[in-house]
């Protein structure tokens, strides 16, 4: 068993060393100027589209709002104090709840799909992958409006159920927590399936055969071989689903109602409706910092786990 798990680690080590070799070639290559030049586009990109916006966001979060939604550059902590006010705690908890439920549901629905794609889809795999990607190619708003048409009081779903005689009066589905979760799962399911699929793909089939040869049954092989080897994909999928869910506002705005007001809506409202940009920036900063530190802590834990193993 131990040897089985150790093997991919070796290949992972090899991978890091090859990455390191590539980096050292870049940074300490024969002509350092050339290698530095190659880093310029990526550096500029990060500087212009990540560091500068984040820096201006942080700067704005420490500024004061003025009349007519202007921003006065007087230093204050007040926006952060307000962002941490207990009245917004409800929204934070609600958002985390929605993100966790979405992630859980995506995992429950996504794992069997990824498993099927990887182990049983065979020739149909390509077609199925394209079908999985199609929602990515349509505009998010178009998809949302389709859901409104399907879920509405006089929508497709209600009319079908009424016609079949399953229900007597139309169900209230739209603008409820249920419709928001449905929308979120719909949008983020591919984010879960793709990393799961790629980590399942990487499992050498010989390991599974070896497990059977050594007398393990289907369930034991799945629990002791497949699942542990797929765990990196599970974690990657969960992060890729959870993090954007925390910031989502469109789904809650269109499919939700007054009771599904999430952090994303709070931020959007500060910038567009309440015109309080410094407070909006403070909420965004808090959100960003908590997500970054969360993911960082997780990676620390993960690498420690790996070392221990």
């Amino acid at each position, binding site marked *: 068993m131990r040897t089985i798990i150790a093997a991919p680690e070796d290949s992972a080590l090899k991978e890091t060393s090859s990455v390191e070799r590539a980096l050292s070639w870049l940074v300490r290559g024969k002509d350092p100027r050339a290698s530095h030049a190659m880093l310029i586009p990526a550096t500029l990109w990060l500087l212009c589209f990540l560091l500068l916006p984040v820096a201006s966001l942080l700067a704005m979060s420490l500024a004061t709002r003025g009349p007519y939604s202007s921003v006065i550059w007087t230093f204050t902590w007040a926006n952060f104090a307000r962002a941490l006010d207990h009245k917004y705690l409800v929204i934070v908890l*609600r958002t985390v709840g929605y993100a966790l439920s979405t992630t859980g549901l995506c995992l429950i629905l996504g794992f069997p799909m990824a498993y099927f794609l990887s182990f049983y889809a065979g020739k149909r795999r390509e077609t199925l992958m394209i079908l999985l990607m199609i929602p990515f190619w349509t505009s998010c708003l178009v998809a949302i409006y389709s859901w409104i048409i399907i879920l*509405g009081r006089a929508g497709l779903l209600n009319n079908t159920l009424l016609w079949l005689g399953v229900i007597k009066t139309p169900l209230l589905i739209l603008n409820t927590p249920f419709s928001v979760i449905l929308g979120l799962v719909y949008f983020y399911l591919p984010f879960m399936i793709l990393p799961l699929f790629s980590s399942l793909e990487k499992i050498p089939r010989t390991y599974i055969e070896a497990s059977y040869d050594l007398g393990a049954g289907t369930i034991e092989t799945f629990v002791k071989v497949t699942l542990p080897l797929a765990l990196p994909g599970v974690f990657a999928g969960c992060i890729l689903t959870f993090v954007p869910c925390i910031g989502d506002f469109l789904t809650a705005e269109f499919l939700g109602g*007054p009771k599904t007001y999430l952090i994303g809506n709070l931020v959007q409202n500060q910038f*567009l*409706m309440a*015109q309080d940009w410094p407070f909006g920036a403070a909420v965004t900063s808090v959100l960003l910092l908590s997500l970054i530190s969360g993911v960082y802590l997780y990676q620390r834990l993960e690498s420690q786990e790996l070392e221990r193993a």
Partner: protein
Amino acid sequence: MPKQVTRREFLRLAVAGAASPWLLACASGEKERAVNFFNWSKYIGKDTLPGFTKATGIKVNYEEFADEQEMFAKLRSGARGYDLIIGSDYMIPSLKGPNIIDPFPPGVLKNLANIDAKFLNTPYDPDNAYTVPYLWGTTGIGYNKKHMPKPPTSWWDLWDEKYSGKVSMLDNARDCVSTGLLLKGYPETATDENAFKEVRELLVKQKPLVKQYSSTQYMDSLVAGELFMAMAWSGDVLQAARENPQLDYVIPKEGSYMWVDNLCLVRGSQHREDTLRLVDYLLEGPVGAEIANTVRYATPNAEAKKSLDKSLLKDPRVFPPAEITKRLNFHSLLEPDVQQIWTDTWEDVKAAG
């Protein structure tokens, strides 16, 4: 060596080729006759702008907004390229304060005389320098007669638990907080903290009954029967009533607000002359009538009233008779710090658990 030169030449040609349409566009940009018009959604006649382009040869780039605050946020954050926008009466100080709009040059608009005198020299624009009235309307309750055999008469009907999950409120501080103040017996100009505390409690109490806070989507929901009642703007409901004749509109007995939407010139516009021609065109009687006939809002244009659909002109929901008008007020002009209390109150309502 020669190979390298050709490659370099090729690159140079490729870059020049890629850039030339852009350069051409830049060069001809100044000569282009166009107006960039940023208007409320569903707020213009079908033939209005094509008619203008046909008559003058000036192109109109038309863009719509669904929310006035979003329009304001866009312009406030420095969006360039808009020449003409629509601003409600109470928005004018916010647009004037940070220099988003310019005054109209006096004497250029020959059709300004068509505007009914009672819409000129208003408190929000005393010298009529910054605004040209476009349409006016009221805020009230839109409802579906099929589900409301007994029509609503009061704002309190929106607080009736019988209709839980079947009502919607407009998603903006101006309409909801002003109604809250009205129902709690405070003047709209109140600044006292208690007044806003009561308004907040009132609106939070209503929250469990509200299906959605929305300023645009509610129309579809009303048509679909998803909503029984909605706090609404007059013309929106009457437009939706074309799709579903069961829809009706009422101004509650406690009173409500009326407002005037105005054409305003955006500062820094590159097409001032063409913009003024468009404004003058929109002021023409038949043009104003076509717009009002389409969007079902009231026109402040006396000349346009002459060619208005008779049914629209006689419709008390569009042009309320005197006994209703006396219950209608214009929104007050608020100081920036009071406006801030309004937006904070509304934010608190939306954030409340």
